[in-house]
């Protein structure tokens, strides 16, 4: 069963079509990749899914229920969580409070204990009492991930979560994503680190100029000439 599905979502900004009848799904217990060049519409699609951006047409379903008309906070309360490409931290709060505010608003039982577990899992325990706006970018992305996890989601949208991490940290991060998916989470991953996407995703969708140009397993997508031309280009061809 697919936890998240997007059906024919279209977004127009004046005369510009940012998303053109895009459909895709993110099944439970898997990491699904969403890649594409800059300006392809990946973040716009995330905004539509989470309710921060209205779509011109199409539907978003969560666990089969059409959530297209729901406001962002109602979607979050139904189990949809995300991180942001451009950081959206609660900078004046400590790392622990960033997660706590999320757990409390979702009504997670024993929120403090749940938050401490997540902090430990992400290796953020020693930074729990640090003000979030004092953190470097890579660590901030982990805090955003922790905040999303603190809402006890069923679907997790990650927008460039590995940017700012070094190779070692990225490798750990990939393992973490696989573990989270193994716990049952449906993860939709937007990431420019193609190696990471190919390593952890079971299915990859490719967007270009707002249109889904390919979908399939990592190897299949890698070999797709349209994808190579539009996005992977020289890197893969070489």
């Amino acid at each position, binding site marked *: 069963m697919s936890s998240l599905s997007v059906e024919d979502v279209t977004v127009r900004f004046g005369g510009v079509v940012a998303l053109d009848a895009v459909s895709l799904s993110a099944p439970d217990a898997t990491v699904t990749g969403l890649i594409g060049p800059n300006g392809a519409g990946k973040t716009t699609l995330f905004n539509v899914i*989470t*309710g*921060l*951006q209205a779509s011109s047409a199409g539907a978003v379903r969560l666990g089969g229920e059409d959530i297209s008309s729901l*406001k*962002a*906070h109602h979607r*979050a*309360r139904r189990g*949809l*969580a*995300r991180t*942001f490409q*451009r*950081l*959206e*931290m*609660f*900078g*004046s*709060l400590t790392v622990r*409070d*960033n997660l*706590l*505010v*999320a757990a*409390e*608003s*979702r009504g997670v039982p024993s929120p403090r204990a749940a938050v401490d577990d997540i902090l430990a899992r*992400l*290796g*953020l325990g*020693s*930074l729990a009492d640090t003000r979030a706006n004092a953190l470097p970018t*890579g*660590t901030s992305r*982990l805090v*955003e991930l922790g*905040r*999303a996890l*603190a*809402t006890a989601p069923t679907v997790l949208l990650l927008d460039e979560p590995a940017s700012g*991490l070094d190779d070692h*940290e990225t490798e*750990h*991060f990939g393992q*973490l994503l696989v573990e989270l998916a193994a716990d049952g989470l449906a993860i939709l991953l937007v990431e420019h680190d193609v190696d990471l996407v190919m390593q952890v995703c079971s299915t990859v969708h490719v967007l270009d100029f707002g249109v889904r140009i390919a979908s399939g397993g990592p190897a299949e997508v890698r070999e797709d000439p349209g994808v190579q031309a539009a996005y992977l280009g020289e890197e893969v061809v070489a």
Partner: protein
Amino acid sequence: MTTFLTYTIIGLVVGAVYSIAASGLVLTYTTSGIFNFAHGAIGMVSAFSYWELRVHRGWPAPLALLVVILVLAPLMGLVIERSVVRRLRGASVEVTLVVTLGLLLALLNLSYYVWDPTLGRPLPRFFDGSKVRLLDVNISYHQLIVLAVGCVVAIGLRLLLGRTRVGLAMRAVVDDSDLLAMNAGDPERVTAFSWALGAALAALAGVLIAPLVTLDALSLTLLVVNAYAAAVIGRLRSLPLTFAGGLGLGLVVTYATGYFPQTESWDRLAAGVPTIALFIVLIFLPPAGVARAQASSRRVPGLPSTVAVTASAIAFAAATVVVARGATLSNLISLGDVLGFGIILLSLVLLTGFGGQVSLCQLTFAGIGALAVGKVGANPLGFLVAACGAGAVGALVALPAVRLRGLYLALVTLAFARFADVVVFPNSAAFGSGDRLAVDRFELGPVSFAGERMYFVLLGVVFAATAAGLLTLRRSSFGRRLSAMSDSPAACATVGIDVTRTKLAVFAISAAMAGVGGGLFGGLHTGVSANDFTMLGCLTLLLLVVLGGIGHVSGAILGSATLGVIAAIKPGVAEPVQRILDLAPGVVVMLVLASVPDGVAGWWGQRVESIRAWRRSDLRSPTQEARTDVQLVG
């Protein structure tokens, strides 16, 4: 029919002035991102300058107009852009609006300094009021000129923006100033030009309307509040819609004034029509997307421990007991003002400092509280009505604006303060015009706080308890939600927080706090009048708490103490010094806020924090430092 045509002509004339003023406002806002609350004050200073040259010095009208509109006003715009606007790049919305409010107060007080407000200054209409008769309606040349100028400005702006190189650059700076810079454009020059042009339009509006109304600094400054609705109809970016909105508004205001029954109450209501129009426009305005986090220089103070908070509150209350025993009765009233205003300012610390929301009508809520206590009684029920009444009104005022961006909340609250000033408070059912409503001092069963000393202690205890309550609230789930909302409304929504409801809640709580403060303030003076809760008073209070440090409870007492000090020394100094004291808050805010956005309390907190950090680093050995390194992913 003739009456209707007459009203229509007058309405179009007034509307043309609104349109000209509002288009200048939109022009500067779109090109610099700063909503200039002092736009009306620029128009007012220009109108007075025109009077100075035309009437006082006897210059011919064309020359005086040329100098004021094409030289003085643009120069004023350029100076403001260079000295104030540029320094505000990247500043938060609350800092930018407080700085332009400071400019408004500074220009207003400057005009009082230069032109004695007690003297009448009749300003002749163009062509000495000569008229033509059209369809049985007398139309003065002045009115015709206003209409013609309105058309010329509308067409001129359209041509400027659509057909000229500088217009293209102005539109480019709105879209992306960085991109313009990369393409060999100069965004700063374009913004400076927009401010010069905006100031010229403000001057034009001021000079055209001043002969039709009284040349009064305050009413001319606030005339632009009426133009807000026009600017909002244009969503603060569309000039054609702004023009249409201005004309429509002018017509509605004039028809209301003309056709409402000729009684005092209806006259007041007619004067409040622009505010009602603004509310209606806001209700129908489509919501903006959820606001993303903005880079802010604001630093939020650390949370003191519960023990420290309790000890400080007890110490503060104890100090008021000591002061109450030692101070003279008249000093107790002055010091009581500091505490009373302090309680009202604490409501702004909660709303703006913690919640990131803006209110320019906090003193109006205090007035509602004082009114409730005056009417119901200075007992627990009276204060309950004060809190609930002010809270409910606060929620109603905020309701149309909270789903929009912060600036709209500022506009609607300022308009509400003006509405209360003009329509609500002077009404005989409220304070009455020039009357004083008796407000008793608090009683709790057999315990009476009627004496000055007891009442002062009561104020001290309430201030300390409220401040401690706020600090405790910051540790609570609601407090965390407020901080989160202030930092990133978008992220809040994606973790399940209902941002609109949280904004409404904090607005209502803060209005309720101000209501209670107003009731206590009324008791201190055993009576209040409409003059105690004016819109200008609201702005001054906001400026002072921002200077004190709006993110800190100590900022509230610093702000109200500054007000107390000014009030205490003012009667004993010469008039020029008094005027300088009036000017001071606005000027200081303009000069220092861009560099010290956290106010005095924030600045001091940072100094203390740096000294502590320096001491810690001095005591720490290199091995200890290495141990603090953190493995980010385990």
